[in-house]
């Protein structure tokens, strides 16, 4: 990255502010002038890409305050750069996919607002701005999700809003405790705050990010939403809560341990459900839960992992929405057009950590330098990942059949192209032992799939996903968090 380095005196603050303000204005302008909305959305995605470029090429992290020490704090560093880049690429792909589908200007205006509020969630460095950004994200995501206006989708959206808003109320109490202790909303105040504050804030962020017990709303919401919305929500929207958790985890050793513990529990839990899922979109949604665990387990490498996950998951959701059926049993009997099978294979092998796509390096980087208990648990989860994606890899390809919609083709080119280019980030990963290990993981996964999992008809209980249980689960998670922090 040194080739394009920006000088150390360069001040990125005005650029970031201008990009966010103009993007919001573009959303409203586009709604008033519907003919321009596609191009405005495109411009907004490109400007986010520019911000991500700034984040990577700045020699060190930049902090700035918009008003005073009580005001909005921003932080631009490589970690936020990865999340910004994910946002830019995934929104771009969804935009291209929806370009010719005749959706109204309202849809694209909401897309811009969602995109921009995600950007501000990735940039901000204090709890209050994070709260505002996350709530705007929830509102915009609700509007986008319920765009088809079917009662079923409205119910899903309502459920999402109810749970996320309740969690954010707990979060607000925690933020108040942080403020009363350190007289500021900055993230760093969390280390001096009483333990209750940590538990309450974490509950809010865990629910938003779909982590472990509090985040069980995620599979149904992501699995049942319309195809482009699933791609967007699994690709970037969950990561808004995750980045907050990562930033908290990097504050002190104690918090890091808490974040890593939650990450491992989530990775194992999500992958167990993903392995046994019978439905494509539901499998992908559970897999998002598991991958968010991987991101949390190694906060330093989390940014890169989140990028590769976002690219893979949105391309898989876009593909799964265009397959002839959502049931794996039916898919295994009908041959899949090669045009669909090849990108499915590429995306699946990337997420399973097979060499030559960025997923392999992300996994290697994540597993590097972790304590043994963490590394062993994550390796088990990685085998589980390989098992669950064998379901896609071992579908039968055929060379006759359906042709591609153009939008889907370009969207996949953007996403998978990003994965191929991502190889340069950590090219040191290509050593013999790493390559052997990755191939072995995938091989063991595929073997277990053929030998065991394919024959299982086990169905894990899904009762925990009812609204009453989800709200009850919040109080249980809160109790667990308290117990962890106090002990």
């Amino acid at each position: 990255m040194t080739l394009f380095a920006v000088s150390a005196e360069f001040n990125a603050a005005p650029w970031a502010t201008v990009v966010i303000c103009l993007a919001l204005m573009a959303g409203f302008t586009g709604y008033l002038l519907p003919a321009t909305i596609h191009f405005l959305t495109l411009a907004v995605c490109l400007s986010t890409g520019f911000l991500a470029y700034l984040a990577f090429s700045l020699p060190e992290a930049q902090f700035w305050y918009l008003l005073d020490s009580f005001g909005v704090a921003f932080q631009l560093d490589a970690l936020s750069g990865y999340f910004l880049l994910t946002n830019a690429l995934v929104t771009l792909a969804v935009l291209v996919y929806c370009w010719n589908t005749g959706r109204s200007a309202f849809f694209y205006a909401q897309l811009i607002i969602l995109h921009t509020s995600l950007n501000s969630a990735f940039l901000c460095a204090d709890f209050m701005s994070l709260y505002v950004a996350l709530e705007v994200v929830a509102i915009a995501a609700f509007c986008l999700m319920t765009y088809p206006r079917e009662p079923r989708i409205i119910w899903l959206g309502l459920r999402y809003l109810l749970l996320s808003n309740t969690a954010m109320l707990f979060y607000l109490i925690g933020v108040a405790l942080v403020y009363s202790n350190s007289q500021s909303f900055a993230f760093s105040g969390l280390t001096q705050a009483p333990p209750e504050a940590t538990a309450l804030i974490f509950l809010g962020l865990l629910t938003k990010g779909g982590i472990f017990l509090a985040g069980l709303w995620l599979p149904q919401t992501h699995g049942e939403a319309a195809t482009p919305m699933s791609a967007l929500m699994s690709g970037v929207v969950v990561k808004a809560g995750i980045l907050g958790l990562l930033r908290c985890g990097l504050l002190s050793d104690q918090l890091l341990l808490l974040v890593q513990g939650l990450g491992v529990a989530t990775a194992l839990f999500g992958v167990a459900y993903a392995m046994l899922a019978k439905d494509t979109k539901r499998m992908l949604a559970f897999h998002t839960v598991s991958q968010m665990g991987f991101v949390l387990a190694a906060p330093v490498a989390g940014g890169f992992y989140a990028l590769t996950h976002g690219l893979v998951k949105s391309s898989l959701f876009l593909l799964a929405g265009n397959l002839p059926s959502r049931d794996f049993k039916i898919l295994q009997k009908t041959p899949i057009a090669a045009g669909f099978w090849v990108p499915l294979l590429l995306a699946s092998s990337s997420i399973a950590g097979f060499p030559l796509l960025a997923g392999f390096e992300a996994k290697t980087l994540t597993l590097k330098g972790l304590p043994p208990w963490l590394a062993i648990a994550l390796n088990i989860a990685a085998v589980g990942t390989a098992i669950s994606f064998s379901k896609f890899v071992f579908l039968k390809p055929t060379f006759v059949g359906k042709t591609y919609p153009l939008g889907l083709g370009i969207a996949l080119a953007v996403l998978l192209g990003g994965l191929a280019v991502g190889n340069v980030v950590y090219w040191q990963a290509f050593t013999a032992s790493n390559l052997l290990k990755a191939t072995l993981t995938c091989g063991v996964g595929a073997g277990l799939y053929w030998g065991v999992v394919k024959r299982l008809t086990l169905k894990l209980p899904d009762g925990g996903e009812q609204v009453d249980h989800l709200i009850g689960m919040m109080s249980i998670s809160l109790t667990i968090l308290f117990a962890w922090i106090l002990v």
Partner: protein
Amino acid sequence: MVALEACIFVTVIIGFLGLIYKPNLFMKIIAMDVMGTGVIAYYCLMAARTGFLTPIVTDKESTIPYADPVPQAVILTAIVIGLSIQALMLVATMKLARENPTLEVKAIEKQYWP
């Protein structure tokens, strides 16, 4: 002060329990609002810890301690957000009520389970 704080937390807990125990979707949303009211009141109480005077600059020197304006200012944003989410959810509830007039969460859930 401690008694007020206790009242506020009781409000929050009553709201949360309502969210769990009320079977009706409409009542759940109202319970969430009760919880939100408790949280907002907590911010106002926190601001009043240092004093009660409105912090406005005047010609006269004041010796009375003034309230902390920052929590009050930020909670305004939270109030607006809470209001808009509440409105959005009630609109969605109205739409759902056409197909499910009783608005019982269990019945709705059963109908739309994948």
